[in-house]
């Protein structure tokens, strides 16, 4: 890979023989790469092509093609006449592809979605704020808003509290690693997989038949009647939230556990000598020390909860009063084909995360300054 051209060729002979070859090579390679990539994009686009071959071509282009592209454009830059020019252009060889992808797939779409949210279902005529009026007044959406807020409060506090509880408890035992792994494991499970898992936990059979869902089995064992957990409006939402808490607790635990280990032991020892009990130590020393981490973790969970889609989509499709904004967005856009409604709902989700974006950027700026 050291075919480098920053160094100027040493002798006249070098310049005469090597330079033209290298110049030609550094022109041909990118052109060839582009042609091959273009051809392969067409091939990968072809729905008739054998799948395995498509993947192999994709992998090949994904690994080698991308590398050759970087390498050959970098090589081309080396042929620019002045050092200043080379140094000016080279960084864009490195960041260019990433920025192009971000612009095409995130930045342009963000503005486009905001624009579309003021147009009608087919994105033809302007309708002013009509889509937002729908978003804030239709009965389904009112349910969705109330549910999303409940989700935010219940799941965020639930995950953080359970995560903190486990982190504090396992710190005192010898099998810490094992216990943590068990709690952490659901993080690897998809929302869809988790939904199936919990659908089985909530499974309902009429009272005269044996219960196969563990929750109803326990209920019947203690003399109760089986409950349709996902249908009963008073707690079906909480049944869904339990799934999310189950998934997110491991994340909270890992981060909080690391923060707990960072609390200086001298501080706690000093308090202990002064006669403080474990509870006092926890609430007046440990919690203030890890407060920043708790906020970070809670924010992360809140962002995930805000966009919760899969769990509701798979478990109830938003029926029986379990609608949430992200599920409504999917249904409006891809079932009802109403891009106006869908865009407006996306924009509402965006507005909800704007404060977090601002804080993230500010934190980063401060971090950079202090470095």
């Amino acid at each position, binding site marked *: 890979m050291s075919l480098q051209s920053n160094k100027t060729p040493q002798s006249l002979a070098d310049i005469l023989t090597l330079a033209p070859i290298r110049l030609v090579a550094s022109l041909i390679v990118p052109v060839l790469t582009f042609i091959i990539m273009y051809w392969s994009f067409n091939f*990968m686009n072809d729905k008739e092509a054998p799948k395995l071959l498509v993947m192999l071509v994709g992998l090949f282009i994904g690994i080698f093609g991308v590398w050759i592209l970087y390498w050959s454009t970098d090589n081309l830059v080396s042929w620019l006449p002045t050092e200043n020019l080379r140094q000016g252009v080279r960084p864009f060889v490195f960041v260019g592809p990433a920025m192009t992808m971000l612009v095409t797939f995130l*930045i342009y779409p963000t503005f486009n979605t905001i624009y579309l949210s003021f147009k009608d279902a087919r994105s033809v005529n302007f309708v002013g704020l009509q889509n937002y009026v729908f978003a804030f007044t239709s009965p389904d959406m009112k349910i969705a808003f109330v549910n999303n807020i409940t989700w935010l409060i219940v799941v965020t506090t639930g995950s953080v509290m359970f995560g903190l509880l486990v982190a504090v408890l396992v710190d005192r035992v010898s099998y810490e690693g094992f216990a943590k792994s068990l709690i952490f*494991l659901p993080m690897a499970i998809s929302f869809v997989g988790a939904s199936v898992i919990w659908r089985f936990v909530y499974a309902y059979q009429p009272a005269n038949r044996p219960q196969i869902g563990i929750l109803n089995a326990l209920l019947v064992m203690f003399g109760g009647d089986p409950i349709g957990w996902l249908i009963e409006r008073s707690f079906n939402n909480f049944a869904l939230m339990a799934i999310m808490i189950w998934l997110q607790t491991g994340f909270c635990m890992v981060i909080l556990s690391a923060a707990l280990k960072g609390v200086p032991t001298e501080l706690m020892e000093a308090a202990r000598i002064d006669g403080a009990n474990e509870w006092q130590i926890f609430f007046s020393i440990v919690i203030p020390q890890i407060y920043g981490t708790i906020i970070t973790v809670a924010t992360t969970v809140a962002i995930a909860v805000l966009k919760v889609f899969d769990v509701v989509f798979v478990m109830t499709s938003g029926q029986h009063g379990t609608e949430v904004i992200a599920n409504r967005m999917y249904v409006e856009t891809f079932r009802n084909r109403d891009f106006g409604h869908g865009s407006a709902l996306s924009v509402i989700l965006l507005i909800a995360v704007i404060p977090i974006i601002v804080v993230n950027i500010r934190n980063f700026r401060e971090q950079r300054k202090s470095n």
Partner: protein
Amino acid sequence: MTTYTRPTRSPLQKFLEKSPVHVAIVFMCLVWTFPTAGIFISSFRDPQAIRSSGWWTVFAHPFEFTQWTLQNYYQVFAAQGMASAFMNSLIVTIPAVVIPVTVAAFAAYAFAWMDFPGRDFFFTLVIGLMVIPIQMALIPVLRIYTSTGLNGTFLGIWLAHASFGLPLAIYLLYNYISQLPREILESAFIDGASHFTAFTQLVLPLSIPAIASFCIFQFLWVWNDLLVALVFLGTSPDVAIVTSRLSDLVGSRGQDWHLLTSGAFITMAIPLTVFISLQRYFVRGLLAGSVKG
């Protein structure tokens, strides 16, 4: 003033003193593993048995081998299209991890070690994009895809997943690459190395831990994703991935627990393996601060 000495205690005493802690931990662990255990055990039981008795009843007679069967897996693989969905998931996931990590590594290097106009602005942009809800991108990208014929193709979903993963990738890799010792790079430049050589020969090998943790994130995120796959790939059998196939099964065969349990376990097998074997890198990535939109 009396000196305070702790009474010496036997290990058993210590254990008993902590018994409330042990009970609480074991209880939490059971609650967290039972749901998954139910699916796992049921997936090996006869369909009739799943319907007529709770999965926990097998603990009464675990060694009656006639009650165990692989029939469910066979059925969900062959008849329910889970085999081709599994293949599709692999096809979608591998390039969707490799492409963004390469593109992000180059960008992260530039942000960390090269000087160019607009650097801070672009990087601020990347940080801002980290938590943008992907819902914002779905409709416009779908419109682009419909007009270019990329809709429903693997290439389309690779590019989408790669781009959605980029902000986090750049951020994670930047955090790591910018912390590499300055002297190493400077001495390389003095020896005449170009940025490209420094990047490939020096920075990339040193950044393997950060690259590994991002790869695990992106792998889990792509493999477990449902929304992006539903929108850009669809649910037709030739392209559907395991999550959309499983979600379809819940809709169409919602009471056939033998299919749902084995299907669910198939979707979970690979991520669980990756996760358990590479947990170290995953945790490291988490602690390096990762929030994805």
